[in-house]
């Protein structure tokens, strides 16, 4: 399954804009991602292990917060995860 990495976080994934993972659930996928790229962890998760509030995780086009199983939702090869952080530039 592909995880799309947004521009502000590519510094922590050696510049990659997409990372392939092989886990069964959303949580497992994010775990695999942050194990491969440990610097990413503190940008995605709080010290208590929750996704930070200025980052949204989407399974395909749906916000994970609104899925009934949330991070425990199972994923397949055909799915994608997108990490969407807030950006403010406009100048």
């Amino acid at each position, binding site marked *: 399954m592909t995880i799309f990495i*947004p*521009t*502000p976080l590519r*510094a922590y994934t050696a510049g990659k804009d997409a990372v392939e993972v092989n886990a069964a659930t959303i949580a497992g996928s994010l775990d695999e991602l942050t194990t491969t790229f440990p610097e990413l962890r503190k*940008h995605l998760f709080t010290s208590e292990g929750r996704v*930070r*509030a*200025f980052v*949204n995780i*989407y399974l395909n*086009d*749906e*916000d994970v917060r*609104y899925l009934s199983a949330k991070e425990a939702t199972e994923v397949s090869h055909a799915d994608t995860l*997108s990490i*969407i*952080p*807030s*950006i*403010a*530039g*406009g*100048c």
Partner: protein
Amino acid sequence: MNTAALAIELPELTEDDLVRYSRHLILPEVGIEGQRKLKAARVLCVGTGGLGSPLALYLAAAGVGTLGLVDFDVVDASNLQRQIIHSTADIGRKKLDSAEEKLKALNPAFNVVKHDTLLSSANALDILKDYDVVADGTDNFPTRYLVNDACVLLGKPNAYGSIFRFEGQASVFATKDGPCYRCLYPEPPPPGLVPSCAEGGVLGILPGLIGVIQATEAIKLILGIGEPLIGRLLLVDALKMRFRELKLRKNPECPVCGAHPTVTQLIDYQQFCGLESESDVQRAVKNGIPQLSVKELKKRMDAGENLFILDVREPFEYRIANIGGKLIPQNEVPERIGEIDRNQEIIVQCKSGGRSQRIAEFLKQSGFANVANLAGGILAWSDEVDPRVPKY
């Protein structure tokens, strides 16, 4: 309000209007009534920079009756790579004046209202209340949250756009049944995590793409046509030229637009975003790091002091301009920390003072007792000490 009454209140089109807007009048989706709605409409553009430039120009071209502009900034050369409403002759001039001149040249018949101020909690409600639609073209998180909250509190839709390097986002927030910005992002990122355009760079065309999308959404809202980006987040990747769409839901527990709001008035957005409070006067210490002004640094250099200036920018920036500091790009500082003398005062410097502040805090946490941040960076040095140092 029934349509008959509405039709009576809409302004008539002049002979000039009929000629100027003929391509709109021919469209069934616009027609004479639609053009009259545009003429009656009042749109506020917050910011006349990257996003604001195409936004304002296209809204003026479309015949929006009144355009409010909020900006307190002055045109500088580095703006001209993307802020196409301004020109070389405008360098040094107030952006509001430059924008007004170009907009009136394009469309002399419409009204421009200039708000020469920094939008803040003290004035936002008063400024926004006279407009029908707000288009947020600002460049920082505190103002984005401020505009969002003000729009929700006043019931004004917000045609939102934001950019970073070569990616953009667009949506419509703060409609009655739709989500607001806080539904998407309840909290801002910690200060310094997402660089500004000045620090991170931006592809010049990008605000053009996104700004026109915002203008399109504003026009659709005014005309009541098409499907606005309500509940939809449009993501644009200009390098791949890929457009994706994600679903945005209204958060029933949103503190501003939810069923039981807890934010019922504007707050201190600087503080909310982890920055110095709006009411604070400029302090000489930020997060425990003393702020050194460029003038003070110059004085100490002239006095022959042996100073360790740590320049944390990238090599290409150093080649454009430098003040002789030791270059260790910010991402390399942790592994090259041994090259920095712990026994000396370290003055950390970057382009405008943001990156250097973060690295100064990092050094302090790593046990460096004597660290200062060069406030304003090399840009301030060029402005206040040596104008021969190029700005970029």
